[in-house]
């Protein structure tokens, strides 16, 4: 079973999906699938497939309104991955700085 973060990372690994997600984020409102397809050279089917993947990762939510399906952006899953990365990013920066200080002090002594 694929877990959440794997889905998020896979979803954003594809440049077209990143662009689709970005398009919905900067629209700052719900976009219909037609509106999204209109911005891309690939087929509507292709766009729909990418949207499904983004939905599966929790990055887009889809709501039916009348005949159209509307996509809403949800950056929450990205934030979760981001937090984790930021934590370890700082953790290793601090640790390597610590290593350097330790070696420098020891050399002086």
């Amino acid at each position, binding site marked *: 079973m694929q*877990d959440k*973060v794997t889905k998020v990372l896979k979803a954003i690994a594809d440049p077209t999906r990143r662009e689709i997600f970005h398009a919905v984020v900067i629209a700052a409102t719900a976009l219909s699938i037609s509106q999204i397809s209109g911005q891309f050279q690939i087929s509507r089917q292709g766009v729909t497939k990418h949207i499904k993947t983004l939905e599966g990762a929790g990055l887009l939510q889809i709501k039916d309104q009348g005949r159209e399906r509307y996509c809403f952006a949800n950056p929450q899953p990205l934030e*979760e991955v981001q937090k984790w990365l930021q934590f370890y990013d700082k953790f*290793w920066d601090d640790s390597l700085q*610590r*290593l*350097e*200080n330790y070696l420098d002090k020891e050399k002086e002594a």
Partner: protein
Amino acid sequence: MKDVITKEVVLNHSIDRIWKAITLQEEISTWFIKADFKAENGYRYEFTASEENGCATITGEVKSASPYTLIYTWTVENTQVETTVTWNLKEVENGTRLTLEHSGISQYTGDTAVEMFNSYTSGWDKCMVALDDHIKNEVHAG
């Protein structure tokens, strides 16, 4: 966003000096975190910090420890997720280039990541401060 954190620094120290610092238990315990560690393939190591600081325990297995590459798995207490830490040293003109990679991030579930992050940050901060004090004290004592 990639599934790996990579850090690279050039240290003005010999490759053997740095290799000792990252592989010997006493040295790791001084600059990094209290360690039960042997740089031997298959060794189940444990990193711990003092209990009063409430720090997490990290366990893992040494996968490779031949100069100058050290690889071990990294599992944080109360999580089932195994990530991998790789240290690599290379002699360069003005010292030694240390490359560190921490991979397998995608194996964390979102919940685990957040939970770990929350429960963990304060603990680590305390540990790091404690370690800083420890080093300062040693320097003063010396």
